[in-house]
């Protein structure tokens, strides 16, 4: 891991307060990757960073001038988001006939996108909640950005069912609000369960994210305050706008941090609340994608009517969510080199292993669907799997039936089952470029998985007379592209204005955080409730 100066001079200057040239770390593998010897575990933070270093690294990226790529990147992503917004406006004005839906395939691209985004949104809360309960301290480096990603993904996800209902101005009728028809929503419908599950999930994730950020926002507030006290005439926003940047920061971060003053009596209740939130978010995160899967599993459609759906969907959500976390963090690790001290190869390797494990679970579920189709003796089920999904034309034989969407099915298998297998090799799961490539393929594969489940089951159901192919229209495609733009814009804004790392949690896993001298042989410190140490 090179510790050469960042090419961006401004960043380098801002970060000049860091400890002098870091010595080569002792023990472990040196680059932060996992070692085979359990006593030689790599440190969670490299280069013997001090508490102040952690503060400086994380806050430096917010307080310094943005890197040169940042503004163009936000403008580009924002333009894509705006374009998507224009297509949504067109859809609302004209109607959902502008999508490629038809009488047979009445859920397609948009519900695929919904499940795709909500699945991605599972990694954040998984990392915050489940890894917290499992005392996985390495989560501290990635939980903040993963939680942010979760919220942005849920925002993208919630858009799709919202615009899919046809008369979007009636969306409020999804909720049990008294209305002129004196009728209530159907509480026996999984679609309504979905409304409650997704909105609860979005709200709780937001609360969790915000609560975790309160101390770090207070750190940003105090830094701005200290600078203002030293030099009341600090820089203004622009030369001709006489508003001091630090004054704005003091006000905004000050308001948001609610006057947090790092009191240990406060920390005590904060940790209690955090642990409870982790405890209740764990069943929540498992429930959300289970309920999404009920949308399909409770119907009688062959290919959907399957009991394996809830665990299969949850495993797929974790799989896709971690892939997105890696896809976002690996470039940031390159662009912001000091982040490599916080997100080490050990973190990437751990996430690669999760991708491998959940990829195998998803692969098992794919196989099990075929087994059950055969074992159930249901001819319709067997036909769906063989002739709606699997059979490519070159295997079907001349003039025989084949699955028209075979390419979607095989893209899914290739991306989700085959590509993660490279992580069996240590050298490959330590190579950020390889990890990024696999994460990219997995993201594509998980989109295809939802497309395969939804479209291939629907397009040829019981009656051959109703069979119909689905072809996306420009509106279908552009709204999806737009949602990617929304996601990226929000993440870029987050990376600029909010702490990308849980500063206080990272400090708590440093070896010097232990109140009883330096942590034991593993050099991991004691941690606390949030970091899961004991």
């Amino acid at each position, binding site marked *: 891991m090179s510790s050469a100066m960042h090419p961006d001079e401004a960043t380098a200057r801002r970060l000049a307060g860091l400890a002098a040239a870091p010595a080569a770390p002792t023990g472990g593998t040196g680059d932060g990757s996992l070692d085979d010897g359990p006593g030689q575990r790599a440190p969670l933070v490299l280069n013997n960073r001090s508490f102040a270093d952690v503060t400086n690294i994380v806050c430096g990226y917010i307080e310094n001038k943005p890197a040169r790529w940042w503004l163009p990147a936000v403008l580009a992503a924002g333009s894509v988001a705006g374009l998507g917004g224009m297509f949504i406006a067109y859809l609302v004005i004209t109607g959902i006939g502008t999508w490629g839906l038809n009488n047979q395939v009445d859920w397609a691209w948009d519900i695929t996108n919904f499940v795709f985004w909500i699945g991605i949104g599972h990694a954040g809360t998984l990392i915050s909640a489940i890894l917290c309960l499992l005392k996985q301290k390495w989560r501290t480096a990635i939980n903040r950005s993963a939680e942010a990603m979760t919220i942005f993904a849920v925002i993208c996800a919630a858009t799709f069912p919202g615009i899919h209902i046809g008369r979007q101005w009636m969306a409020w009728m999804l909720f049990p609000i008294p209305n002129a028809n004196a009728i209530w929503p159907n509480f026996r419908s999984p679609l309504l369960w979905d409304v409650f599950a997704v909105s*609860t999930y979005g709200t709780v994730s937001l609360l969790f994210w915000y609560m975790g950020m309160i101390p770090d926002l207070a750190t940003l507030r105090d830094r701005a305050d200290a600078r203002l006290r030293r030099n009341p005439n600090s820089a203004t926003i622009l030369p001709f706008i006489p508003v001091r940047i630090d004054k704005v920061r003091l006000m905004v971060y000050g308001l948001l941090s609610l006057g947090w003053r790092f009191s240990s009596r406060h920390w005590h209740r904060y940790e*209690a609340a955090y642990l409870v939130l982790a405890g209740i*978010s764990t069943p*929540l995160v498992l*429930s959300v994608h289970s309920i999404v899967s009920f949308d399909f599993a409770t119907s009688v459609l062959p290919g959907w009517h399957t009991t394996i759906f809830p665990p299969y969907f949850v495993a797929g959500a974790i799989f896709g969510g971690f892939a997105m976390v890696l896809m976002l963090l690996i470039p940031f690790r390159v662009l912001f080199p000091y982040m490599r001290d916080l997100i080490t190869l050990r973190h990437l390797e751990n996430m690669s292993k999760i991708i491998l494990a959940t990829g195998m679970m998803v692969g098992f579920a794919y196989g099990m669907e075929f087994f059950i189709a055969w074992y159930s003796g249901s001819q319709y089920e067997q036909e769906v799997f063989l002739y709606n999904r699997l059979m490519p034309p070159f295997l079907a034989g001349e003039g025989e039936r084949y699955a028209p969407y075979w390419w979607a099915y095989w893209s899914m298998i290739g991306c989700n089952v085959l590509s993660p297998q490279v992580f069996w090799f240590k050298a490959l799961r330590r190579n950020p470029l390889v990890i990024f490539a696999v994460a990219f393929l997995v993201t594509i594969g998980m989109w295809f998985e939802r497309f395969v489940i939804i479209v291939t089951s629907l397009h040829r159901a019981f009656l051959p007379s109703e069979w119909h192919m689905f072809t996306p229209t420009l509106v279908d495609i552009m709204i999806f592209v737009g949602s990617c733009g929304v996601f990226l814009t929000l993440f870029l804004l987050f990376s600029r204005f909010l702490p990308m790392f849980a500063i206080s949690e990272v400090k708590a896993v440093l070896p010097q955080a232990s109140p009883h001298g330096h942590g034991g042989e593993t050099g991991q410190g*004691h*941690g606390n409730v949030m970091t899961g140490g004991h």
Partner: protein
Amino acid sequence: MARQSTGTIYTTAAGVPVYGMVAEYATPADVYRAAEAVRDAGYTRWDLYAPFPIHGIDEAMGVKRTKLPILIACIGLTGASLGFLMQWWMTGVDYPMLVQGKPFTAWESFIPITFELGILSAAFTAILGMLAFNRLPMWNHPLLRKDRFLRCSDDRFMICIEAADEKFDQDKTRHLLEAAGGTNVDLVEEEPEPVKEVNDHH
């Protein structure tokens, strides 16, 4: 204003009321030992400030376990019950709807939403309860006006004993904090009294 139950009001040399006395510690180990010393000396109105929750500090400070989880459980269960009641009343009583030939008040399909609403109310209680028990938001505090205190959000550890504590005594308290390894021991001034506008018309 820091007023002891004995009625003493401490002031600085300039006559400003004193909020408390603060001491600085460089490492978690130092502040941990100091916390034990302050606890054992019998102080009750004091606090320790650290950039992260130090492992085991509650015991060193003698902080009692918070009742917040009980409150969360109560409100979470209440939310779940109300959620169930809402579905039962809307589907079974107010506008009975025959769906899938099930009895109007069949409870099984109400479970997912009951669960979600329980979680939702518990989550709001967790964060709002934590803030309320901590008396936050409080955007102004005597400590936040001290320049050195701002480093508690970075890498410093501090203990502040309030002048309102019955055992507070400028000399003895200073001695205790210094003996425990504290540096930069200093008095913290109270917030200036807010200037109230006198309005004779009322």
